[in-house]
Protein backbone atom coordinates (compact mmCIF):
# COMPACT_ATOMS: atom_id res chain seq x y z
CA UNK A 1 0.00 0.00 0.00
CA UNK A 2 1.50 3.24 -1.08
CA UNK A 3 1.43 6.33 1.02
CA UNK A 4 1.38 9.01 -1.59
CA UNK A 5 -0.23 12.23 -0.65
CA UNK A 6 -2.30 13.86 -3.30
CA UNK A 7 -0.67 17.06 -4.38
CA UNK A 8 -2.47 20.01 -5.80
CA UNK A 9 -1.50 19.16 -9.32
CA UNK A 10 -2.63 15.58 -9.18
CA UNK A 11 -6.26 15.40 -10.06
CA UNK A 12 -6.71 11.68 -10.43
CA UNK A 13 -5.08 9.88 -7.53
CA UNK A 14 -5.28 6.32 -8.70
CA UNK A 15 -4.21 4.46 -5.67
CA UNK A 16 -3.35 5.68 -2.27
CA UNK A 17 -3.77 5.01 1.34
CA UNK A 18 -4.00 7.36 4.25
CA UNK A 19 -2.87 6.39 7.68
CA UNK A 20 -3.77 8.17 10.82
CA UNK A 21 -5.72 11.01 9.28
CA UNK A 22 -8.97 10.39 11.09
CA UNK A 23 -10.71 12.77 13.41
CA UNK A 24 -12.60 15.91 12.82
CA UNK A 25 -11.26 18.24 10.22
CA UNK A 26 -12.08 21.90 10.17
CA UNK A 27 -13.61 23.47 7.14
CA UNK A 28 -10.33 25.13 6.30
CA UNK A 29 -8.78 23.25 3.43
CA UNK A 30 -5.28 21.96 3.95
CA UNK A 31 -3.29 19.77 1.65
CA UNK A 32 -4.20 16.72 3.65
CA UNK A 33 -7.88 17.49 3.34
CA UNK A 34 -7.72 17.31 -0.42
CA UNK A 35 -7.60 13.56 -0.08
CA UNK A 36 -11.05 13.70 1.41
CA UNK A 37 -13.17 14.32 -1.62
CA UNK A 38 -16.10 15.14 0.59
CA UNK A 39 -16.17 16.55 4.09
CA UNK A 40 -19.46 17.49 5.67
CA UNK A 41 -19.92 18.59 9.26
CA UNK A 42 -23.29 19.04 10.94
CA UNK A 43 -24.96 20.23 7.79
CA UNK A 44 -28.48 21.58 8.06
CA UNK A 45 -30.24 22.20 4.78
CA UNK A 46 -33.72 23.64 4.67
CA UNK A 47 -36.33 22.99 2.06
CA UNK A 48 -38.66 25.87 2.70
CA UNK A 49 -38.26 25.67 6.50
CA UNK A 50 -38.27 21.88 6.62
CA UNK A 51 -34.86 20.56 7.69
CA UNK A 52 -34.19 18.00 4.99
CA UNK A 53 -30.68 17.59 6.38
CA UNK A 54 -30.64 17.93 10.15
CA UNK A 55 -27.01 18.08 11.17
CA UNK A 56 -25.50 15.56 8.80
CA UNK A 57 -21.83 14.68 8.92
CA UNK A 58 -19.94 12.64 6.37
CA UNK A 59 -16.43 12.16 5.13
CA UNK A 60 -15.55 10.41 1.92
CA UNK A 61 -12.12 9.72 0.58
CA UNK A 62 -11.27 10.31 -3.02
CA UNK A 63 -11.59 7.33 -5.31
CA UNK A 64 -14.25 5.63 -3.21
CA UNK A 65 -17.70 4.54 -4.24
CA UNK A 66 -20.28 5.21 -1.58
CA UNK A 67 -23.76 3.79 -1.64
CA UNK A 68 -26.22 6.05 0.14
CA UNK A 69 -29.20 4.07 1.27
CA UNK A 70 -32.20 4.92 3.36
CA UNK A 71 -35.96 5.21 3.34
CA UNK A 72 -37.84 7.61 1.14
CA UNK A 73 -37.73 11.15 2.41
CA UNK A 74 -34.55 10.51 4.36
CA UNK A 75 -32.69 13.34 2.72
CA UNK A 76 -30.65 11.42 0.15
CA UNK A 77 -31.53 13.67 -2.74
CA UNK A 78 -30.93 16.77 -0.67
CA UNK A 79 -27.56 15.42 0.35
CA UNK A 80 -26.53 14.95 -3.25
CA UNK A 81 -27.78 18.38 -4.22
CA UNK A 82 -25.94 19.94 -1.34
CA UNK A 83 -22.75 18.19 -2.40
CA UNK A 84 -23.28 19.54 -5.89
CA UNK A 85 -23.38 23.04 -4.51
CA UNK A 86 -27.03 23.57 -5.32
CA UNK A 87 -28.61 23.64 -1.88
CA UNK A 88 -27.39 26.31 0.54
CA UNK A 89 -26.32 25.33 4.03
CA UNK A 90 -28.33 26.78 6.86
CA UNK A 91 -25.79 25.52 9.35
CA UNK A 92 -22.65 23.46 9.33
CA UNK A 93 -19.99 23.23 6.69
CA UNK A 94 -19.18 21.19 3.65
CA UNK A 95 -16.06 20.95 1.54
CA UNK A 96 -16.23 19.17 -1.77
CA UNK A 97 -13.08 18.46 -3.77
CA UNK A 98 -11.25 21.07 -1.80
CA UNK A 99 -13.82 23.79 -2.33
CA UNK A 100 -16.05 25.17 0.37
CA UNK A 101 -19.65 24.76 -0.70
CA UNK A 102 -20.73 27.95 0.99
CA UNK A 103 -18.10 30.29 -0.43
CA UNK A 104 -17.15 28.68 -3.74
CA UNK A 105 -20.29 27.01 -5.06
CA UNK A 106 -19.42 27.66 -8.67
CA UNK A 107 -16.10 25.86 -8.39
CA UNK A 108 -17.86 22.97 -6.73
CA UNK A 109 -20.43 22.76 -9.48
CA UNK A 110 -17.86 22.82 -12.21
CA UNK A 111 -16.11 19.77 -10.75
CA UNK A 112 -19.06 17.54 -9.99
CA UNK A 113 -21.51 15.67 -12.15
CA UNK A 114 -25.03 15.32 -10.81
CA UNK A 115 -27.39 12.85 -12.38
CA UNK A 116 -30.84 13.50 -11.03
CA UNK A 117 -34.16 11.86 -11.81
CA UNK A 118 -35.34 14.82 -13.85
CA UNK A 119 -33.51 14.86 -17.10
CA UNK A 120 -32.29 18.27 -18.06
CA UNK A 121 -32.95 17.74 -21.71
CA UNK A 122 -34.99 20.09 -23.84
CA UNK A 123 -37.91 18.30 -25.42
CA UNK A 124 -37.84 20.14 -28.72
CA UNK A 125 -34.16 19.63 -29.44
CA UNK A 126 -32.50 16.49 -30.68
CA UNK A 127 -30.16 14.45 -28.54
CA UNK A 128 -27.20 15.72 -30.46
CA UNK A 129 -28.29 19.32 -30.10
CA UNK A 130 -28.84 18.89 -26.40
CA UNK A 131 -25.46 17.28 -25.98
CA UNK A 132 -23.73 19.96 -27.97
CA UNK A 133 -25.45 22.70 -26.00
CA UNK A 134 -24.58 21.33 -22.59
CA UNK A 135 -21.05 20.58 -23.67
CA UNK A 136 -20.53 24.14 -24.86
CA UNK A 137 -22.04 25.60 -21.74
CA UNK A 138 -19.79 23.65 -19.42
CA UNK A 139 -16.75 24.36 -21.51
CA UNK A 140 -16.21 20.87 -22.80
CA UNK A 141 -17.17 21.22 -26.42
CA UNK A 142 -13.93 19.71 -27.59
CA UNK A 143 -15.12 16.31 -26.47
CA UNK A 144 -16.18 13.71 -28.99
CA UNK A 145 -19.93 13.80 -28.59
CA UNK A 146 -20.63 10.77 -30.76
CA UNK A 147 -18.26 8.67 -28.71
CA UNK A 148 -20.12 9.68 -25.58
CA UNK A 149 -23.38 8.65 -27.21
CA UNK A 150 -21.87 5.36 -28.31
CA UNK A 151 -20.92 4.62 -24.73
CA UNK A 152 -24.55 4.86 -23.66
CA UNK A 153 -25.81 3.12 -26.81
CA UNK A 154 -27.72 6.16 -27.93
CA UNK A 155 -25.80 6.90 -31.10
CA UNK A 156 -28.62 5.78 -33.45
CA UNK A 157 -30.95 8.26 -31.78
CA UNK A 158 -28.67 11.23 -32.06
CA UNK A 159 -30.93 13.15 -34.40
CA UNK A 160 -34.21 12.35 -32.75
CA UNK A 161 -36.03 14.96 -30.75
CA UNK A 162 -36.09 14.20 -27.06
CA UNK A 163 -39.87 14.36 -26.88
CA UNK A 164 -40.05 11.20 -28.99
CA UNK A 165 -37.89 9.14 -26.67
CA UNK A 166 -38.74 6.96 -23.71
CA UNK A 167 -37.70 7.66 -20.13
CA UNK A 168 -34.93 5.12 -20.28
CA UNK A 169 -33.51 6.58 -23.45
CA UNK A 170 -33.63 10.08 -22.01
CA UNK A 171 -31.85 8.92 -18.91
CA UNK A 172 -29.11 7.41 -20.99
CA UNK A 173 -28.73 10.63 -22.93
CA UNK A 174 -28.57 12.53 -19.65
CA UNK A 175 -25.80 10.21 -18.53
CA UNK A 176 -23.87 11.10 -21.65
CA UNK A 177 -24.33 14.78 -20.90
CA UNK A 178 -22.88 14.34 -17.43
CA UNK A 179 -20.11 12.00 -18.58
CA UNK A 180 -18.77 14.55 -21.02
CA UNK A 181 -17.82 16.78 -18.14
CA UNK A 182 -15.46 14.17 -16.71
CA UNK A 183 -16.36 15.11 -13.18
CA UNK A 184 -14.12 14.24 -10.27
CA UNK A 185 -17.14 13.58 -8.12
CA UNK A 186 -20.12 11.71 -9.47
CA UNK A 187 -23.41 12.20 -7.70
CA UNK A 188 -25.95 9.72 -8.95
CA UNK A 189 -29.51 9.97 -7.68
CA UNK A 190 -31.41 6.77 -8.33
CA UNK A 191 -29.57 6.17 -11.59
CA UNK A 192 -31.18 2.79 -12.26
CA UNK A 193 -34.74 3.89 -11.75
CA UNK A 194 -36.95 3.37 -14.76
CA UNK A 195 -34.28 1.67 -16.84
CA UNK A 196 -34.46 -1.69 -18.47
CA UNK A 197 -31.79 -4.34 -18.08
CA UNK A 198 -29.60 -2.91 -20.80
CA UNK A 199 -29.90 0.55 -19.34
CA UNK A 200 -28.98 -0.68 -15.89
CA UNK A 201 -25.91 -2.36 -17.28
CA UNK A 202 -24.90 0.90 -18.87
CA UNK A 203 -25.16 2.67 -15.53
CA UNK A 204 -23.02 0.03 -13.89
CA UNK A 205 -20.49 0.39 -16.68
CA UNK A 206 -20.50 4.10 -16.07
CA UNK A 207 -19.73 3.65 -12.41
CA UNK A 208 -16.89 1.34 -13.33
CA UNK A 209 -15.53 3.88 -15.80
CA UNK A 210 -15.59 6.47 -13.07
CA UNK A 211 -13.76 4.21 -10.66
CA UNK A 212 -11.14 3.53 -13.26
CA UNK A 213 -10.61 7.20 -13.83
CA UNK A 214 -10.09 7.65 -10.13
CA UNK A 215 -13.15 9.76 -9.55
CA UNK A 216 -15.22 9.58 -6.41
CA UNK A 217 -18.73 8.24 -6.75
CA UNK A 218 -21.75 8.68 -4.53
CA UNK A 219 -24.83 6.71 -5.47
CA UNK A 220 -28.17 7.16 -3.78
CA UNK A 221 -30.18 4.14 -4.63
CA UNK A 222 -32.71 1.58 -3.54
CA UNK A 223 -31.09 -1.01 -5.81
CA UNK A 224 -28.89 -2.39 -3.09
CA UNK A 225 -28.13 -5.65 -4.88
CA UNK A 226 -26.79 -3.86 -7.88
CA UNK A 227 -24.80 -1.15 -6.24
CA UNK A 228 -23.33 -2.88 -3.19
CA UNK A 229 -20.98 -5.03 -5.24
CA UNK A 230 -19.52 -1.90 -6.76
CA UNK A 231 -19.36 0.09 -3.55
CA UNK A 232 -16.47 0.58 -1.17
CA UNK A 233 -18.60 2.20 1.53
CA UNK A 234 -22.23 2.32 2.53
CA UNK A 235 -23.85 5.26 4.27
CA UNK A 236 -27.27 4.87 5.77
CA UNK A 237 -29.26 8.07 5.89
CA UNK A 238 -32.48 8.60 7.77
CA UNK A 239 -34.08 11.60 9.39
CA UNK A 240 -31.66 13.96 7.70
CA UNK A 241 -28.52 12.50 9.22
CA UNK A 242 -26.14 9.62 8.63
CA UNK A 243 -27.07 6.79 10.94
CA UNK A 244 -24.33 4.44 9.92
CA UNK A 245 -21.26 4.49 7.77
CA UNK A 246 -19.43 1.30 7.02
CA UNK A 247 -16.81 -0.06 4.75
CA UNK A 248 -17.72 -2.85 2.43
CA UNK A 249 -15.32 -5.70 3.01
CA UNK A 250 -15.33 -6.98 -0.51
CA UNK A 251 -14.89 -3.51 -1.95
CA UNK A 252 -11.84 -2.26 -3.76
CA UNK A 253 -10.22 0.07 -1.27
CA UNK A 254 -6.63 -0.53 -1.99
CA UNK A 255 -4.37 -3.46 -1.87
Amino acid at each position, binding site marked *: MSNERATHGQIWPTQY*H*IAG*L*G*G*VSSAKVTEADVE*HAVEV*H*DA*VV*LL*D*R*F*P*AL*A*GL*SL*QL*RAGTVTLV*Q*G*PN*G*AGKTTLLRMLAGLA*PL*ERGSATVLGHDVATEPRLVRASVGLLSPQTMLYDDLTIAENLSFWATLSGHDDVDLMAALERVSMAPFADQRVVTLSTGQRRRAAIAVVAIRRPRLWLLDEPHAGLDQAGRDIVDGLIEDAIEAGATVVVASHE*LDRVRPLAT*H*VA*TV*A*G*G*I*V*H*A*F*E*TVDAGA*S*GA
Partner: protein
Amino acid sequence: MSTSLAEPQTATSNSDVTGTSSKLTFALGSASLLGLAVLLVLAFVITDADQRVYDRGVDLEPLLTGQGDAVRLLYVHFPVAMVTYIAFMLNAIGSVAVLWKKSTWWDNTAAAAAEVGVLFCGLTLATGSIWGRPIWNTWWKWGDVRLMTTTILFLIFVGYLAYRRTMTDSRVRAKRSAVVGLIGAINIPIVYKSVDWWQNRTLHQQSTLRDRSIEDLTLFTMIFGMVVFMAIFAWLMVHRFRIGWLEHQAETVGLEAAIIERRAQTSTAISDAVTDSRSSTETGSD
Protein backbone atom coordinates in the same frame (compact mmCIF):
# COMPACT_ATOMS: atom_id res chain seq x y z
CA MET B 1 -29.25 42.50 16.26
CA SER B 2 -31.78 44.96 17.62
CA THR B 3 -31.48 48.40 19.05
CA SER B 4 -31.61 48.64 22.80
CA LEU B 5 -34.50 51.09 22.75
CA ALA B 6 -36.65 49.11 20.43
CA GLU B 7 -36.32 45.81 22.23
CA PRO B 8 -39.59 43.93 21.97
CA GLN B 9 -40.53 41.46 24.61
CA THR B 10 -38.30 38.59 23.67
CA ALA B 11 -39.88 35.25 24.20
CA THR B 12 -38.85 31.68 24.39
CA SER B 13 -42.27 30.53 23.43
CA ASN B 14 -45.16 32.17 21.71
CA SER B 15 -47.32 32.27 24.80
CA ASP B 16 -45.05 34.80 26.49
CA VAL B 17 -45.67 37.52 23.98
CA THR B 18 -48.74 39.64 24.43
CA GLY B 19 -48.08 42.35 21.93
CA THR B 20 -45.59 44.70 20.42
CA SER B 21 -46.18 47.59 22.79
CA SER B 22 -43.60 49.02 25.09
CA LYS B 23 -42.90 52.20 26.93
CA LEU B 24 -41.37 53.60 23.78
CA THR B 25 -44.41 52.99 21.64
CA PHE B 26 -46.72 54.31 24.30
CA ALA B 27 -44.77 57.52 24.49
CA LEU B 28 -44.52 57.85 20.75
CA GLY B 29 -48.15 56.99 20.23
CA SER B 30 -49.55 59.44 22.69
CA ALA B 31 -47.24 62.19 21.56
CA SER B 32 -48.27 61.60 17.94
CA LEU B 33 -51.93 61.59 18.77
CA LEU B 34 -51.65 64.78 20.73
CA GLY B 35 -49.50 66.35 18.08
CA LEU B 36 -51.93 65.36 15.38
CA ALA B 37 -54.79 66.95 17.25
CA VAL B 38 -52.82 70.16 17.67
CA LEU B 39 -51.80 70.10 14.04
CA LEU B 40 -55.33 69.74 12.81
CA VAL B 41 -56.47 72.61 14.95
CA LEU B 42 -53.61 74.73 13.72
CA ALA B 43 -54.08 73.79 10.12
CA PHE B 44 -57.79 74.03 9.83
CA VAL B 45 -58.70 76.68 12.33
CA ILE B 46 -55.96 78.95 13.47
CA THR B 47 -53.93 79.65 10.38
CA ASP B 48 -55.32 81.92 7.76
CA ALA B 49 -56.57 80.75 4.44
CA ASP B 50 -54.49 81.75 1.50
CA GLN B 51 -56.11 84.99 0.51
CA ARG B 52 -53.30 86.33 -1.55
CA VAL B 53 -54.36 88.90 -4.00
CA TYR B 54 -52.64 90.05 -7.11
CA ASP B 55 -53.22 93.69 -7.62
CA ARG B 56 -53.70 94.39 -11.29
CA GLY B 57 -53.89 98.06 -11.10
CA VAL B 58 -56.54 100.76 -10.70
CA ASP B 59 -59.25 99.80 -13.12
CA LEU B 60 -59.13 96.06 -12.79
CA GLU B 61 -60.46 93.94 -9.99
CA PRO B 62 -57.82 92.47 -7.75
CA LEU B 63 -57.29 88.86 -8.72
CA LEU B 64 -57.60 86.23 -6.06
CA THR B 65 -54.64 84.00 -6.77
CA GLY B 66 -54.40 82.34 -3.46
CA GLN B 67 -55.67 78.88 -2.94
CA GLY B 68 -58.20 79.75 -0.35
CA ASP B 69 -58.97 77.10 2.14
CA ALA B 70 -57.44 74.37 0.06
CA VAL B 71 -54.00 75.35 1.25
CA ARG B 72 -54.87 73.89 4.65
CA LEU B 73 -54.64 70.43 3.22
CA LEU B 74 -51.02 71.08 2.41
CA TYR B 75 -50.17 70.98 6.07
CA VAL B 76 -51.02 67.29 5.88
CA HIS B 77 -50.13 66.52 2.29
CA PHE B 78 -46.62 67.86 2.43
CA PRO B 79 -45.43 65.95 5.52
CA VAL B 80 -47.16 62.78 4.37
CA ALA B 81 -45.36 63.00 1.03
CA MET B 82 -42.08 63.53 2.82
CA VAL B 83 -42.60 60.50 5.01
CA THR B 84 -43.40 58.43 1.94
CA TYR B 85 -40.07 59.18 0.38
CA ILE B 86 -38.24 58.63 3.63
CA ALA B 87 -39.90 55.25 3.99
CA PHE B 88 -38.95 54.17 0.48
CA MET B 89 -35.41 55.41 0.96
CA LEU B 90 -35.24 53.31 4.09
CA ASN B 91 -36.36 50.34 2.04
CA ALA B 92 -33.64 51.01 -0.50
CA ILE B 93 -30.98 51.19 2.18
CA GLY B 94 -32.33 48.04 3.76
CA SER B 95 -32.26 46.25 0.40
CA VAL B 96 -28.62 47.15 -0.09
CA ALA B 97 -27.84 45.90 3.40
CA VAL B 98 -29.65 42.62 2.78
CA LEU B 99 -27.70 41.96 -0.39
CA TRP B 100 -24.41 43.09 1.04
CA LYS B 101 -24.50 41.80 4.59
CA LYS B 102 -27.33 39.28 4.42
CA SER B 103 -28.85 40.92 7.46
CA THR B 104 -32.22 39.71 8.69
CA TRP B 105 -32.66 42.85 10.72
CA TRP B 106 -32.42 44.97 7.61
CA ASP B 107 -34.78 42.74 5.67
CA ASN B 108 -37.33 43.18 8.43
CA THR B 109 -36.83 46.93 8.36
CA ALA B 110 -37.12 47.06 4.60
CA ALA B 111 -40.38 45.13 4.67
CA ALA B 112 -41.82 47.34 7.42
CA ALA B 113 -40.72 50.48 5.59
CA ALA B 114 -42.33 49.30 2.38
CA GLU B 115 -45.65 48.62 4.08
CA VAL B 116 -45.73 51.91 5.90
CA GLY B 117 -44.48 53.61 2.77
CA VAL B 118 -47.29 52.25 0.64
CA LEU B 119 -49.79 53.45 3.24
CA PHE B 120 -48.35 56.94 3.28
CA CYS B 121 -48.01 56.95 -0.49
CA GLY B 122 -51.70 56.25 -0.79
CA LEU B 123 -52.39 59.06 1.63
CA THR B 124 -50.16 61.36 -0.38
CA LEU B 125 -52.02 60.61 -3.54
CA ALA B 126 -55.37 60.99 -1.84
CA THR B 127 -54.61 64.28 -0.08
CA GLY B 128 -52.94 65.57 -3.19
CA SER B 129 -55.91 64.69 -5.30
CA ILE B 130 -58.32 66.35 -2.90
CA TRP B 131 -56.12 69.41 -2.81
CA GLY B 132 -55.83 69.48 -6.53
CA ARG B 133 -59.52 69.36 -7.27
CA PRO B 134 -60.31 72.95 -6.41
CA ILE B 135 -56.96 74.21 -7.63
CA TRP B 136 -56.52 72.38 -10.91
CA ASN B 137 -60.18 71.72 -11.43
CA THR B 138 -59.48 68.05 -11.82
CA TRP B 139 -58.81 65.03 -9.62
CA TRP B 140 -55.88 63.93 -11.71
CA LYS B 141 -53.32 65.63 -13.86
CA TRP B 142 -51.39 63.51 -16.27
CA GLY B 143 -47.96 64.90 -16.83
CA ASP B 144 -47.54 66.48 -13.46
CA VAL B 145 -44.09 65.28 -12.56
CA ARG B 146 -44.51 64.61 -8.90
CA LEU B 147 -47.90 63.05 -9.27
CA MET B 148 -46.66 60.66 -11.93
CA THR B 149 -43.56 59.75 -9.99
CA THR B 150 -45.51 59.12 -6.81
CA THR B 151 -48.09 57.05 -8.62
CA ILE B 152 -45.51 54.84 -10.25
CA LEU B 153 -43.68 54.56 -6.94
CA PHE B 154 -46.94 53.43 -5.39
CA LEU B 155 -47.42 50.75 -8.02
CA ILE B 156 -43.84 49.56 -7.77
CA PHE B 157 -44.11 49.01 -4.06
CA VAL B 158 -47.56 47.49 -4.18
CA GLY B 159 -45.90 45.01 -6.52
CA TYR B 160 -43.04 44.61 -4.05
CA LEU B 161 -45.42 43.76 -1.22
CA ALA B 162 -47.39 41.39 -3.41
CA TYR B 163 -44.16 39.68 -4.39
CA ARG B 164 -43.03 39.25 -0.80
CA ARG B 165 -46.22 37.42 -0.09
CA THR B 166 -45.45 34.77 -2.71
CA MET B 167 -42.44 33.44 -0.83
CA THR B 168 -42.32 31.62 2.48
CA ASP B 169 -38.62 30.85 2.74
CA SER B 170 -37.36 33.90 4.59
CA ARG B 171 -33.83 33.86 3.24
CA VAL B 172 -34.96 33.56 -0.36
CA ARG B 173 -37.60 36.18 0.25
CA ALA B 174 -35.08 38.61 1.70
CA LYS B 175 -32.69 38.33 -1.21
CA ARG B 176 -35.22 38.47 -3.98
CA SER B 177 -37.32 41.29 -2.59
CA ALA B 178 -34.12 43.23 -2.00
CA VAL B 179 -33.41 43.00 -5.73
CA VAL B 180 -36.94 44.13 -6.56
CA GLY B 181 -36.86 46.92 -4.00
CA LEU B 182 -33.54 48.23 -5.20
CA ILE B 183 -34.55 48.25 -8.84
CA GLY B 184 -37.74 50.04 -7.81
CA ALA B 185 -35.72 52.62 -5.96
CA ILE B 186 -33.28 53.33 -8.78
CA ASN B 187 -36.26 53.77 -11.03
CA ILE B 188 -37.45 56.84 -9.20
CA PRO B 189 -35.02 59.39 -10.57
CA ILE B 190 -35.48 57.85 -14.02
CA VAL B 191 -39.24 58.20 -13.84
CA TYR B 192 -38.94 61.69 -12.49
CA LYS B 193 -36.66 62.81 -15.28
CA SER B 194 -38.70 61.12 -17.98
CA VAL B 195 -41.94 62.72 -16.96
CA ASP B 196 -40.20 66.02 -16.43
CA TRP B 197 -38.89 66.03 -19.98
CA TRP B 198 -42.21 64.83 -21.20
CA GLN B 199 -44.22 67.67 -19.89
CA ASN B 200 -41.50 70.10 -19.00
CA ARG B 201 -43.68 71.70 -16.45
CA THR B 202 -45.32 70.99 -13.17
CA LEU B 203 -48.47 72.33 -11.74
CA HIS B 204 -47.09 71.57 -8.33
CA GLN B 205 -46.40 74.41 -6.11
CA GLN B 206 -42.78 75.27 -5.99
CA SER B 207 -41.18 74.77 -2.65
CA THR B 208 -43.05 76.96 -0.25
CA LEU B 209 -40.39 76.87 2.37
CA ARG B 210 -38.25 79.11 0.28
CA ASP B 211 -40.98 81.62 -0.25
CA ARG B 212 -40.17 84.39 2.13
CA SER B 213 -43.62 85.78 2.14
CA ILE B 214 -44.90 82.95 4.27
CA GLU B 215 -45.62 84.27 7.67
CA ASP B 216 -44.38 82.72 10.83
CA LEU B 217 -47.44 80.77 11.83
CA THR B 218 -47.69 79.06 8.48
CA LEU B 219 -44.06 78.10 8.60
CA PHE B 220 -44.41 76.85 12.13
CA THR B 221 -47.45 74.75 11.26
CA MET B 222 -45.67 73.28 8.30
CA ILE B 223 -42.66 72.24 10.32
CA PHE B 224 -44.82 71.08 13.19
CA GLY B 225 -46.72 68.93 10.73
CA MET B 226 -43.51 67.33 9.58
CA VAL B 227 -42.52 66.53 13.13
CA VAL B 228 -45.91 65.04 13.95
CA PHE B 229 -45.94 62.81 10.94
CA MET B 230 -42.39 61.70 11.52
CA ALA B 231 -43.51 60.64 14.98
CA ILE B 232 -46.46 58.74 13.53
CA PHE B 233 -44.09 57.12 11.05
CA ALA B 234 -41.72 56.09 13.80
CA TRP B 235 -44.56 54.67 15.86
CA LEU B 236 -45.86 52.62 12.95
CA MET B 237 -42.38 51.45 12.05
CA VAL B 238 -41.58 50.26 15.55
CA HIS B 239 -44.77 48.24 15.78
CA ARG B 240 -44.46 46.78 12.32
CA PHE B 241 -40.80 45.97 12.81
CA ARG B 242 -41.54 44.14 16.03
CA ILE B 243 -44.27 42.10 14.45
CA GLY B 244 -41.84 40.99 11.78
CA TRP B 245 -39.14 40.34 14.33
CA LEU B 246 -41.39 38.18 16.45
CA GLU B 247 -42.41 36.23 13.38
CA HIS B 248 -38.76 35.67 12.64
CA GLN B 249 -38.10 34.50 16.17
CA ALA B 250 -41.02 32.12 16.01
CA GLU B 251 -39.52 30.67 12.86
CA THR B 252 -36.15 30.18 14.49
CA VAL B 253 -37.63 28.49 17.53
CA GLY B 254 -39.65 26.36 15.19
CA LEU B 255 -36.52 25.36 13.34
CA GLU B 256 -34.86 23.89 16.40
CA ALA B 257 -37.91 21.81 17.16
CA ALA B 258 -38.14 20.75 13.53
CA ILE B 259 -34.55 19.58 13.49
CA ILE B 260 -35.05 17.46 16.57
CA GLU B 261 -38.22 16.01 15.17
CA ARG B 262 -36.53 15.32 11.87
CA ARG B 263 -33.63 13.46 13.40
CA ALA B 264 -36.04 11.24 15.26
CA GLN B 265 -37.45 9.95 12.03
CA THR B 266 -35.99 6.50 12.11
CA SER B 267 -37.76 3.85 10.24
CA THR B 268 -37.96 0.11 10.25
CA ALA B 269 -36.99 0.25 6.63
CA ILE B 270 -33.39 0.85 7.64
CA SER B 271 -31.43 -2.27 6.93
CA ASP B 272 -30.26 -4.59 9.68
CA ALA B 273 -26.65 -3.65 9.31
CA VAL B 274 -27.30 -0.24 10.83
CA THR B 275 -25.96 0.44 14.28
CA ASP B 276 -27.87 2.82 16.47
CA SER B 277 -25.11 5.26 17.19
CA ARG B 278 -24.97 8.31 15.05
CA SER B 279 -21.84 8.52 13.01
CA SER B 280 -20.11 11.86 12.87
CA THR B 281 -16.43 11.36 12.32
CA GLU B 282 -15.99 7.86 11.08
CA THR B 283 -13.80 7.64 8.05
CA GLY B 284 -14.01 3.88 7.86
CA SER B 285 -11.38 1.52 9.04
CA ASP B 286 -8.55 0.72 6.78
